[in-house]
């Protein structure tokens, strides 16, 4: 069988398309990891947070987050006892380099680390017009960097302000709960570097996970429960003034 020049010109692009399609097949999955056995959550103990900013630095270095953008950040609250509804909040550079001494010495003061709440009913995934963001079967809210158009709907939809547009890729970016680490048996970068154990990664589907005991014995709250997002970021010692 001989192929004419005309036939070759038709066949080559067709072969290129087919080869590209084969290449886009399933990448190698993490071995020994079963999505059905996990339902990831995060436990944040405000009573232990010292506002050192290790988590913010750790996250930025692990995930190459551009300067001035944060997948996790730390807020400092200052609440006067006669103004419970009007807390003063500051977070210089996301708390990356710690916090300067407070201006006021009275009142109630504490740190609140924040990150994506990995909601089970997440508003951000519901607004995506192209199916580029989703809750994975193991309960992590992820962004498909190849599908995202950068339309910013999800950035506006998140009630916790946890999403941003990466200026380098022009796509939505957010905490992945260090999905590349937790699927390999490691903990997240922020939990790894937290010196006081204020952050704990938890697998709610594991009956031996210490989170179950903690949730039973402590007064635990999620952020903005009235939004009914089924947030999986549990806060111990959360003050009512925290927004």
């Amino acid at each position, binding site marked *: 069988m001989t192929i004419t020049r005309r036939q070759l010109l038709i066949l080559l692009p067709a072969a290129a398309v087919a080869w590209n399609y084969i290449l886009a097949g399933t990448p190698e999955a993490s071995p020994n990891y079963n999505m059905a056995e996990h339902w990831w959550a995060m436990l944040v103990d405000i009573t232990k947070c010292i506002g050192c900013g290790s988590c913010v630095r750790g996250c930025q270095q692990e995930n190459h987050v551009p300067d001035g953008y944060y997948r996790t950040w730390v807020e400092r609250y200052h609440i006067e006892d006669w103004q419970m509804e009007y807390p003063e909040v500051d977070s210089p550079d996301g708390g990356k380099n710690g916090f300067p001494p407070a201006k006021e010495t009275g009142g109630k003061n504490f740190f609140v680390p924040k990150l994506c709440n990995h909601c089970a009913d997440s508003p951000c995934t519901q607004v995506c017009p192209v199916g580029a963001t989703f809750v994975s079967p193991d309960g992590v809210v992820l962004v*498909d960097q190849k599908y995202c158009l950068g339309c910013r709907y999800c950035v506006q939809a998140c009630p916790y302000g946890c999403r941003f547009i990466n200026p380098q890729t022009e796509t939505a970016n957010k905490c992945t709960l260090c999905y590349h680490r937790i699927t390999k048996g490691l903990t997240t970068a922020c939990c790894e570097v937290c010196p006081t154990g204020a952050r704990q990664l938890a697998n709610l589907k594991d009956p031996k996970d210490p989170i179950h005991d903690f949730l039973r014995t402590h007064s635990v709250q999620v952020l903005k429960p009235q939004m009914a997002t089924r947030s999986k970021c549990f806060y111990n010692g959360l003050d009512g003034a925290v927004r």
Partner: protein
Amino acid sequence: MKIFQDAGHLFRLAAVFLLGLILFLVIRSFLVPRSFGRYGHYRANAITETAALPVNYAGHQVCENCHGDVLEVKSKGVHKGVACESCHGPLAAHAEDPASVLPVKLDTAVLCARCHQENIAKPKTFPQVNAAEHSGGAACNTCHQPHSPAMDTEVKQ
């Protein structure tokens, strides 16, 4: 009365529509990635692509495989719960290739203050100092051994 006398036009039109539909389905099957819709309205391969990203923080278990001597000192002190890379930074590259990638020397005057500089918002039980008054700007490891900083257990001369 012959209602369907010109029905041939309709059949031809239907054939054109059918051809268009088939063409649409064929092109669509090429453009939609095969993993789209496996778990939901998204590309399932995006999960594995995210999971395949490189790790920069090796994790303290990896460090302890080689640095057992440091672990022994650390596990007796108050810093036993602090992971190695919390101070030393991300060192997965060093764990991969210990000879060529070396950790940078740390400045304790900056590093210790990040956690232990006094701040009203820190928990009251957490040990805090005013670094300027406490040491006058001297490096913390002049007196303290960072891996086990309590003065009565480990004194570095």
